């Protein structure tokens, strides 16, 4: 998957998985996902961590990594791409 494809899929997961009342296209890729206008809380964050792990086969080991990885859709796509590359080379 390319980075734009990953970003698109992540936005869909966010909207479908957390049942947001917006279209995936409305999410600004560089905006913060949590603690922002989307009104998501820590329970949503945990749910999203699990959804990302389930759908992209990546590991999010703790809150510190989760905060960085889930900072924005752009950061998340970058994180997933890095993880997948690392997995492919190891």
């Amino acid at each position, binding site marked *: 998957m390319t980075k734009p494809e990953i970003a698109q899929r992540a936005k869909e997961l966010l909207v479908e998985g957390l049942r947001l009342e917006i279209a995936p296209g409305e999410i600004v890729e560089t905006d913060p996902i949590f603690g922002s206008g989307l009104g998501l809380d*820590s329970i949503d964050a945990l749910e999203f961590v699990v959804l990302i792990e389930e759908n992209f086969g990546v590991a999010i080991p703790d809150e510190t990594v989760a905060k960085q990885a889930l900072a924005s859709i752009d950061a998340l796509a970058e994180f997933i791409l890095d993880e997948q590359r690392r997995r492919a080379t190891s």
Partner: protein
Amino acid sequence: MLAARFAELRRARAGALAVLDTDGGRAFTRDDLAREVDRAGALLDEGGAAAPGGIVALQLANGAAFFAIILACWERDLVPMPVDHDVAAAALEDLCRVTGASAIVRASADGRTPAVRRHPVPGALATLPSGSALLKVTSGTTGEPRAVALTAVALEAGVAQIVATMGLEPGDRNLVTIPLAHSYAFDNVLLTLVHDGMPAILARDLTPRRLLAVAREAGATVLPTVPFVIDVLGRATQAGAVPSLRRVISAGAPLPAATRERFTATLGVRPRTFYGATECGGIAFDRDGEGDLPDGCVGAALDGVQLTLADPDEDGIGRVCVHSASVAAGYHAAPSRDTEPGEVELRDGRFLTADLGSFDARGRLQLVGRVREVVNLGGRKVYPLEIERVIRGVPGVLDVVVSGVARSSVTDALRAVVAAEPHVSREDIAAACEQRLARYKVPRSIEIVDSLPRTGRGKLDRRALDARYPID
């Protein structure tokens, strides 16, 4: 009484682990914790907390200081009143005024060490029931907080019932994911430490992989938690096993069978449903932990608890009434609402809940709804739980609440708010209901959501639900 019990445990094994705070990475032995208690006591004394019998409100996150303040209060015959972290400052102030709390303990500016603030006590106040050792705050059935007074005798009876029924042992270690200020964690974690020496491993980071790693490293054996945590852990299939884990307890909300089974498959331990109330502590528990536990079934009465059903109807459904030594002495400084229909009653060692239930052939309690949740559809009585059970059986459904919403002055309409996986549609839910329920029991309004609004206590937030999903 409870402070003396902990002192005894300390004398017996001073170096045994008491609290492991995984956030700061600090481990407290019983000796270390006793030192924290001395420090907390000095803080209370310097802060001029109160004369014996006085009430001390505390609003602290999970940490060694929480245990220390409670024990320091008990050493001084003060009555601690833990208040949930998400209670706003104004609401805390109200609660202190109504109950007559003379001091408030909250985290200081550094967020870690507690600080004591005196609180003015107004004149004529209701006196605490004699022997009160703790005030537990409950949101009750109406959402308005009330303080429940418990004696040390009731607290000791309550923890003994839990330990005996759940088969807990002094060598067990609790993994703590729930706020100690809530009745459930207070009993299952704080009291099992103070009374039985069970160490508490405080998890701050609930990211599934981290939580499971902490459980593994710390050798956690018992996990008293809520269905949401059971759900995310059950889905963390690549996060590794926790070989030490042997008892998982689910309370606070119904545990869907699918969530239970997924967790069992992933971690090899079957979560057991636990039913309790702030007013009386533990009530029932999935004691066998095997076979198919029907939805709504909360297991059999705890050791030392007698359950009866008040005013049963022809189907054997009545209000759950709890008799045990752990029942609270009474509400403190709260007007009695006993005369209001459907209101809970607390008196003479008996707690009449607002839950409706019946017993199955094996003597297990089956909850069918709440007293106020019998929906009247043009004269026909409908128990929402019957409908919830059908909806919960639809693959992909995680959680559901069915309630009656006034449709006109004479009749209600049924509304189902269903938390489900994305592939589940309104039509799936409607079809399942039409297939298995009388036509009038099929909800008129079906909303699919990702999760149901819950309060900080894990209880369904009915106000948020009504505001968000009006029936049209």
